[in-house]
């Protein structure tokens, strides 16, 4: 899915290294890119593959790589350079349980790594979190456009569940890479123009500071224009579950169950993890004073939720690390426990604390 969506987005270059659970992507790209005249290289390491991505991006190609947690750690060097050199590229991380080698089960334990930069230096990746196969397809196309628009690495954050789920999907219209807007900064030989240099080393602190502030302004623009989220059943909610990706799907099932039992519970789902939809969540916290963050990790996004609500709502965590996938019933149980424990069933109509 990810692979075909990337090809539809006009991606013609893929560099990767095998790691479970995302081997379907390089396997698919190895034959599909041949068909469309692109280039696939199975590199000798994640380091090599992300650096091939750097080179292809410098040369103006629509390029991507994919991996899973331990492999993404190795790619962080290159991702930092992509950000510093302002190069567009798409990186997909199908998260598995960690730390270390962990396991190959679906997890969300790379949230910090993805949303805080991940590598060294002052930078941000744009992080998209699909919660359905349709969204995975749509967001893959969006990822390439965002990468080009902001000249910044974009990360698609999923997990093995998202990678192996089967759902009907409507494919977006294919993008012809030849018809994409011309990039006036690529390295393609200094013919009839001055030399171009792409670098991230700026030895003079004043110049590097100016570069850092330029990046900050770019990130501000991304925050302003690209922050995306979805609210479901939040209008009358007395408790809202905050969850993304696979966890949001499970939470959705849990909320349907508790609603049938009369509990007024909604779902707040960030679609971009960076930028995190802090403003809408803060506004929501003016009316809904109880937020249950549900993540497939020991608690990472919960810190962004706490920052967003600025203490106006109580924030609790239901986190399941290690690749354990709770059922909607498990989550429903957690919701009910919180709901009745906070006596939300005893409030008057309209909710509020």
């Amino acid at each position, binding site marked *: 899915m990810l692979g075909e969506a990337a090809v539809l987005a006009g991606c013609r270059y893929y560099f990767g290294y095998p790691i479970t659970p995302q081997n379907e992507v390089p396997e698919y790209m190895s034959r599909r890119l041949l068909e469309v005249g692109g280039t696939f290289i199975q590199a*000798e390491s994640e380091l090599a593959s992300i*650096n091939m991505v750097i080179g292809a991006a410098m040369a103006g190609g629509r*390029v991507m790589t994919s991996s899973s947690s331990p492999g993404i750690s190795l790619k962080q060097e290159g991702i930092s350079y992509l950000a510093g050199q302002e190069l567009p590229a798409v990186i997909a991380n199908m998260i598995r349980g960690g730390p270390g080698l962990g396991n190959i089960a679906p997890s969300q334990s790379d949230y910090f790594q993805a949303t805080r930069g991940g590598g060294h230096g002052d930078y941000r990746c744009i992080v998209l979190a699909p919660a359905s196969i349709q969204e995975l397809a749509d967001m893959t196309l969006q990822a390439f456009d965002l990468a080009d628009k902001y000249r910044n690495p974009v990360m698609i954050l999923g997990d093995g569940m998202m990678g192996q789920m089967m759902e009907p999907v409507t494919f977006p219209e294919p993008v012809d890479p030849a018809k994409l807007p011309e990039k006036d900064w690529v390295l393609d030989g200094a013919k009839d123009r001055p030399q171009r240099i792409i670098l991230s080393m700026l030895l003079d602190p004043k110049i590097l500071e100016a570069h850092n502030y330029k990046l900050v302004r770019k990130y501000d623009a991304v925050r302003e224009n690209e922050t995306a989220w979805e609210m479901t059943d939040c209008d009358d909610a007395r408790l809202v579950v905050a969850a993304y990706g696979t966890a949001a799907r499970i939470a959705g099932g849990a909320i349907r169950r508790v609603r049938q039992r009369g509990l007024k519970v909604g779902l707040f789902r960030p679609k971009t993890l960076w930028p995190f939809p802090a403003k809408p969540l803060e506004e929501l916290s003016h009316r809904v004073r109880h937020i249950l963050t549900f993540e497939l990790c020991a608690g990472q996004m919960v810190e962004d939720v706490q920052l967003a609500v600025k203490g106006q709502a109580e924030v609790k965590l239901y986190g399941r690390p290690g690749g354990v996938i709770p059922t909607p019933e498990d989550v429903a149980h957690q919701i009910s426990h919180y709901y009745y424990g906070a006596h939300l069933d005893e409030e008057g109509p309209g909710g509020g604390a």
Partner: protein
Amino acid sequence: MKQVFARPKSLKPAATHYCPGCGHSIIHRLVAEVIDELGIQERTIGVPPAGCAVLAYNYFDVDMGEAPHGRAVAVATGIKRVLPDRVVFTYQGDGDIAAIGTAESIHAANRGEKITAIFVNNAVYGMTGGQMAPTTVPGLVTTTTPGGRQVNRDGAPLDLTQMLAVAKGAVYLERVAVSDPKHIRQAKKAIKKAFQVQLDGLGFALVEVLSACPTNWKMDSITAWQWVKDSMTKDFPLGVIKDETGYDAGPETEAGDDR
């Protein structure tokens, strides 16, 4: 009046930051002369290393894209695969290509990436202040081998170029030195051939250039360059290490070349 000597077009009129007696300026000039002579300045893209030559983009007047330490051939691979009709070269030091970038180097060579690598071996980490390099020869004192490199403790110098010879996609590998005018002429010939290999689409080509680092070797320039000839060449003998180009005597053998 006939002009007999000028700055190559592919070299900017800039003063370099290199130390007195360093070989980088000579090697830069040779690469620039070759780019000029082959008429490829407008379609050449260079990838400098992390190391003393990190600022090479200030000197070469071609498009340049900086690579993380050791990853230059991987970056060059990405560029070349997107733009196969451009000429892509890397310029790397010994620590860059033969320590942290060993894996990238051998696999790019093995895939036969159609790029040209210029590998400057001065037996020491220059920019970081003179630590042991993979190519530091036994006995040489560095800041991390205070009593001199000991083979039983620090390992023997690694001959990366020889190692690359087993890679099927490497078609031309030669070791040269820029220690005196005669060797400089030979070095230029090798560099030109390594670019020609790429122009002819034959595969991976690398020229290892033995150079001096008087500053970190703590020698005066004359002693340092003599040391290149007398000592370094014992561990790194000059000559063609691999040549599967099929060129008879090189594409443009210059008369009077007395190799």
